[in-house]
């Protein structure tokens, strides 16, 4: 794949992961189990939406067709979104939300750490900025996995179920395709497979301390990076894009 096309695709993946997870978290606003969690989830969502703006604006700049972050977020259809399947999974209960967050944060942290050394200075500076925020997200989601896993019988049961149910979506994080190959070749980002051992090490150590068991590696649910999504994404976009679709070009 040609350099600029691959870079555009790659930036969409980074931006869409942050956008869709940020949107999912914002769905908790006003519904969280406690006020502190309402604040926390909304603030993590805010960080992710901020990162989305940086990535998608850069994607629009690279594409060179006059699209900015808003146009890319509000005016693409599901097939054109490039987020991994993990982030579009429904919030479920609080254990599902925090397990999804922990799987994602641990990977996001490792990815951003490598991207902050990207040969493309624009990627490096966004990654370095986002890494500070994501470090905090990871500390928080890890604490919740520990607290719920090694908590009451009921919290343990729910966290174990969440860890099991979401496992099938984690394999996609480490699989490379032609876009990744082009990015690796040009020194812009890491080989996704190279993040796996560190990720698994942290997830395994956390699960053990939380008295949880990790599923065996097996069949992997994938396709999001190439635009093949679960049905959930359509519902997210219906909500996220409603205003721009109903009132084109409306501004704040």
């Amino acid at each position: 794949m040609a350099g600029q096309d691959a870079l555009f695709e790659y930036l969409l993946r980074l931006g869409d992961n942050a956008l869709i997870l940020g949107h999912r978290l914002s769905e908790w606003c006003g519904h969280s189990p406690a006020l502190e969690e309402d604040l926390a989830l909304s603030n993590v969502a805010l960080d992710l939406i901020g990162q989305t703006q940086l990535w998608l604006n850069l994607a629009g700049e690279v594409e060179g067709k006059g699209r900015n972050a808003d146009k890319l977020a509000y005016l693409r259809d599901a097939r054109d979104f490039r987020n991994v399947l993990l982030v579009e999974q429904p919030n479920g209960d609080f254990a599902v939300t925090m397990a999804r967050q922990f799987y994602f944060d641990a990977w996001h942290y490792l990815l951003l750490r490598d991207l902050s050394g990207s040969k493309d200075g624009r990627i490096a500076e966004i990654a370095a900025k986002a890494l500070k925020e994501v470090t905090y997200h990871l500390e928080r989601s890890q604490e919740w996995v520990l607290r719920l896993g090694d908590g009451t019988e009921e919290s343990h049961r729910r966290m174990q179920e969440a860890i099991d149910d979401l496992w099938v979506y984690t394999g996609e994080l480490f699989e490379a395709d032609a876009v990744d190959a082009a990015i690796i070749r040009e020194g812009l980002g890491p080989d996704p497979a190279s993040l796996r051992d560190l990720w698994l090490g942290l997830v395994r150590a956390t699960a053990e301390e939380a008295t949880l068991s990790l599923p065996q590696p097996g069949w992997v649910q994938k396709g999001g990076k190439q635009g093949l999504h679960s049905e959930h994404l359509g519902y997210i976009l219906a909500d996220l894009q409603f205003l721009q679709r109903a009132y084109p070009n409306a501004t704040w």
Partner: protein
Amino acid sequence: MNDSLTRPDLDEIREWLGDVPDPEVPAVSVTDLGIVRDVRWDDDELVVAITPTYSGCPATSVIALDIEMALRAKGLDKLRIERRLSPPWTTDWITQEGRQRLQAYGIAPPAENADKPSPFDRFLRKPLTIACPRCGSENTARISEFGSTPCKAQYQCRACLEPFDYFKCI
């Protein structure tokens, strides 16, 4: 205003910026927080470079507007606000005066020289000692990882029972 004799000195402009309050924590100014990264003349245009504290901080655009309005009020009308991401903002850039003002306002300033190990070394992390901005006791506990803005956490003093904001260290 392209005559260097009539354009104000950069130090004077920095002083004016020292009177622009942060919109969310008005006890401190944008220079106290280290948000203003550069002030320079580009020919006859004044350029002020600012950096966001957090990438999603909604105050960033308000800060840009406040700076612009403050400088226009001083008669500077050719100016440009530049957004700078790198190096990323750190609480280490908050000035000593800024730390004192936060404290006086009831917000515990960020821990100094806190080690920032990777979350992959979580067992190396030591719990931070945060002093209550009201009574000074170090017997405090975190009650929420986030507070009223992304840059703060909620603590409570176990000595005087006062709940307070802590400006997180990043």
